């Protein structure tokens, strides 16, 4: 490397390239954002119903008369243990999307936000909910509770 070759980068050309670089950086940032937005997203896992079968716990965790909220297809769901066995119901209230709770003393599902009540099969008993809570298929195998179709 000789002395004259070092002088190739002057202050002016350095600033020139700095400006070009910042333009290029801005352009790439915007183009990258648009490209990642336009590229179709992965098929949704958030859609309700027909999700993968998920193991949500063992039978002795939820004794008779108790309920538990768990995540099914990335959405909260409720599994309850009644005389009829285990059943799984969406825990997203059909009114405004609050997470419903299992009321052990009343043996009913209650929404804490606006007082909607549902029976053990998700049907509306009273309150502002416009429709029933969707239910999911439950299978018990080897003392493990599974929710969803196989």
């Amino acid at each position, binding site marked *: 490397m000789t002395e004259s070759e070092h002088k190739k980068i002057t202050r002016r050309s350095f600033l020139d390239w700095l400006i070009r670089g910042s333009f290029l950086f801005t352009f790439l940032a915007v183009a990258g954002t648009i490209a*990642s937005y336009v590229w179709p997203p992965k098929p949704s896992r958030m859609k309700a119903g027909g999700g993968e079968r998920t193991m949500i716990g063992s039978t002795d965790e939820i004794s008779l008369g108790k309920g538990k909220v768990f995540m099914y297809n990335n959405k909260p769901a409720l599994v309850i243990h009644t005389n009829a066995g285990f059943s799984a119901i969406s825990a997203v209230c059909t009114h405004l999307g609050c997470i419903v709770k299992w009321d052990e003393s009343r043996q009913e599902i209650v929404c804490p936000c606006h007082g909607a009540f549902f029976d053990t099969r998700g049907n509306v008993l009273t309150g502002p909910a416009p429709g029933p809570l969707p239910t999911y298929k439950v299978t018990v195998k080897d003392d493990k509770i599974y929710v969803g179709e196989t």
Partner: protein
Amino acid sequence: MQNNKRSNLFTRIENWFKERIDVYEILDSFSSLTGFLYTELDKRLDIKDAIEKALKKPVPKHVNWMFCFGGITFLLFIVQIGTGILLALYYKPSPENAYESIQYIMNEVRLGWLIREVHAWSANLMILALFFHMLRVFFYGAYKSPRELNWIAGIFLMFITLTFGFTGYLLPWDQLSYWATTVGTEIAGGIPWMGKYILYVMRGGENITGTTLSRFYTLHVIVLPWVAAVFLGTHFLMIRRQGISGPL
């Protein structure tokens, strides 16, 4: 010594390219926009003088930062076009799908939340910038003769922008947009004598239904952008013709 080694590496990379393609000739003609405009395009279209005249038009001494609001409004309008086109790729204008498609944009599409929030924020800021622009024009007396027509074009642009906001507000199809549109159309319905007909046409019926959504969507993405483009064109042409208004 370390520096020297690195320089050698760069020289070798540079030479590798030089042997294969004439990098510098390409860089010289495309290195900057002006380089491209003034050489390659000018050879063919003879546009150098026109561009020079447009870009080097002197700005009067009295022009200060308050004269920026019109340009800011226009910049935000450009942002709205860009983000609006992107949102239209995923938005579905029907009562069954509208809300869900917005949830999809917000939760599933990569950076969808960003595009939607930029659209919403610049919509609000555009109206803010528009009113600051109007205040500047008003208090500088810039609306006076011979610029009355440009003030009127600006008033049309203000109403177009507000209609953009009003129609865009219904598109998420949630409670907020439903009731905002209910109230908004009822205000139009309060106009004496012809109000009820206006309300009927705006809603596409007695109530706010899928028809209303289709109407508002058509206005928002097809009608208003073109009307706005025409008025913006005349707005800017008149500024060029008449020049920036004088000092206080």
